[in-house]
């Protein structure tokens, strides 16, 4: 076991992937010489060359569009979108091309492209640097959408994403980049939890708390804090946002009878809505309370000095948990 930051764990995972398959390449703005603004690709261009780690022109549609072309040629591009708010210029290439190519070609073409997106807030940034656009991609059939939560997960998940033959939108919790965790770098990839599976972070009996990405840590802390009040919260890290691992989710909710979903994205028409709807349908007779959601408000991401009010924190999550007990 090695203690690594999440950023470093991704770096090591990318390194493994580059070593394992000469078709893997990395592309994006500033990923090469600079090593990425979060240093996730640090040193990779130096070690693997400018042809495998490409500093691109400044154009997100171009990054995804040419990655599609490279994938058609047999490559496995891993694209970096520098910040969540800059993925929108690439929406057309992602939604209309990347997601649909395999389907429309009746399986004749596959596009093993990974799009890495540092997402979420909490770093005191200026506008467009704290977005959580995951539901747009989750709604888009043909994409796999995942989010990693800590260094250990990041290390295996990035490798699994690159090995996956489907396009994967890979969300990275940017405010957790510098969090450290033990990573088992010797573990074989095929023993890792599959990309489509959720993971129980903390078992509990009274309520199921579903989350992903940056809030996994927050929810875990909330669950620990709640123990003192005698509340047993089961925290599940969804990992896969599309498809959802409903087996794991439903089994937990059927047991606990209560469910809260937490994410940073606006609650309105966010991923939590899908989870709530689906959990309610599958666990209707077991629910003691409606599935409640805690997340961003129906406003654009606010200025940095107010983001602590916008982001669900320990208190707001526990407040929501409490409200499910009021039913």
């Amino acid at each position, binding site marked *: 076991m090695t203690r690594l930051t999440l950023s470093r764990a991704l770096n090591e995972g990318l390194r493994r992937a580059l070593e394992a398959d000469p078709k893997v390449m990395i592309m994006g703005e500033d990923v090469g010489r600079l090593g990425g603004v979060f240093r996730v690709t640090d040193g990779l261009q130096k070690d693997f060359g400018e042809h495998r780690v490409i500093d691109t022109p400044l*154009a997100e549609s171009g990054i995804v*569009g040419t990655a599609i072309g490279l994938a058609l040629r047999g490559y496995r591009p891993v694209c970096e979108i520098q910040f969540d708010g800059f993925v929108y210029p690439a929406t057309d290439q992602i939604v209309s091309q990347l997601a649909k190519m395999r389907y*429309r*070609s*009746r399986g*004749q073409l596959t596009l093993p492209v990974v799009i890495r997106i540092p997402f979420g807030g909490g770093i005191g940034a200026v506008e467009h640097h704290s977005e959580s656009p995951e539901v747009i991609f989750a709604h888009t059939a*043909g994409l796999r959408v995942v989010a990693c939560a800590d260094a250990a997960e990041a290390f295996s998940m990035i490798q699994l994403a690159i090995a*996956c033959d*489907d396009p994967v939108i890979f969300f990275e919790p940017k405010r957790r980049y510098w969090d450290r965790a033990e990573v088992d770098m010797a573990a074989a990839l095929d023993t890792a939890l599959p990309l489509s599976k959720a993971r129980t972070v903390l078992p509990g009996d009274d309520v199921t708390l579903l989350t992903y990405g940056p809030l996994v840590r927050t929810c875990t802390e909330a669950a620990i804090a709640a123990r003192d009040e005698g509340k047993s919260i089961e925290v599940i890290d969804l990992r896969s946002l599309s498809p959802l691992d409903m087996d794991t989710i439903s089994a937990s909710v059927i047991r606990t009878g209560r469910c809260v979903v937490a994410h940073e994205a606006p609650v309105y028409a966010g991923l939590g809505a899908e989870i709530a709807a689906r959990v309610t349908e599958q666990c209707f007779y077991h629910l003691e309370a409606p599935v409640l959601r805690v997340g961003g408000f129906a406003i654009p991401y606010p200025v940095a000095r107010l983001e602590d009010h916008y982001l669900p924190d320990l208190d707001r999550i526990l407040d929501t948990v409490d409200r499910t007990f009021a039913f």
Partner: protein
Amino acid sequence: MTVETGGATMVAPNDTELIQLLTPEGERVEHPQYPLSDVDIKGLYRDMVLVRRFDTEAISLQRQGELGIWASLLGQEAAQIGSGRALSPRDMAFPSYREHGVAWCRGLDPVRLLELFRGVSNGAWDPQEYKFHLYTIVIGDQTLHATGYAMGIKRDSAEDEAVIVYFGDGATSQGDVSEAFSWASVFQVPVVFFCQNNQYAISAPQERQSPIPLYQRSRGFGFPGIRVDGNDVLACYEVTRQALRAAREGRGPTLIEAFTYRMGAHTTTDDPTRYRLASELEVWRLRDPIERVRAYLARTGQANAAFFEQVDAEAAELAARVRDACRALPDPPPLAMFDHVYTGANAILEAERAQYGDYLDGFEPAGLGQRESEVAR
């Protein structure tokens, strides 16, 4: 020469900038930079006649309700056959949605093309097998795919391969096309951008995309642009051949603007009388891409009446075959719509498939026949 349209004024290219090897009257003209290499002109003629006949057939199949829509290539045969025949077997082509002539050159059975427009399949051919990508309908998107593919060729040091990507005059306004120009130029990859300027993007005349000739666009991105008479199959052939060679030799991208004319409607649902005058079409009829080759072949004695008759007979045969084959194209089975979304399993999707299968099974005796359907959709 100035052609009056409903409101826009169309300036035909002036001769100094337009590459032409065969005049509308069928006279061969020499161009110092483009000496015509060995090429089977009778073959080009045959190709053009056959794809035009196929196209005409597709239009009537649409009228008969066999196709949902059709995008005709009428008038653009020379641009497509000329450039398509300039491709080497290893070159990769990325079409838009109107490149039936290029598909023909790539050896694709034209019936496959009908599958998209009939609504039975979006992927009727294997792009790798034919080195001909699927049609792309979102304007301009394929230019980036082509550029990325060319980046791969360069990385593979595959010196005998190049890419050609087709798009229209309208597409030049899309951001993605400019991004493709940037990338191709920055990375100096082997791609030829082949713009068929058929003068219209549905109803928008070319002036709505650029006040200057489109072939000049690439200059701002650092690579050459050439305007070729898009109704001259010989010029299209030779100019494309040289651009592809330059690409393969590592000399980077080229933009070719084939100056041509969409003689028909944008698609079968379009009504061009709403936005352009019939007189404009008359002018362009005199520049028909097929007639000039026929005149040239006949006048130089390279082909006789028997040849022309034989090609016409082949065309009639092709039309008949296409007609029958189109009618025979079956609808896919309902549950096929759930196939090929992912390479691996997706539990959400599988559940939907299972549920819908059960639902269909619930109709007696079997399947859709018994579903009450909406009265007038």
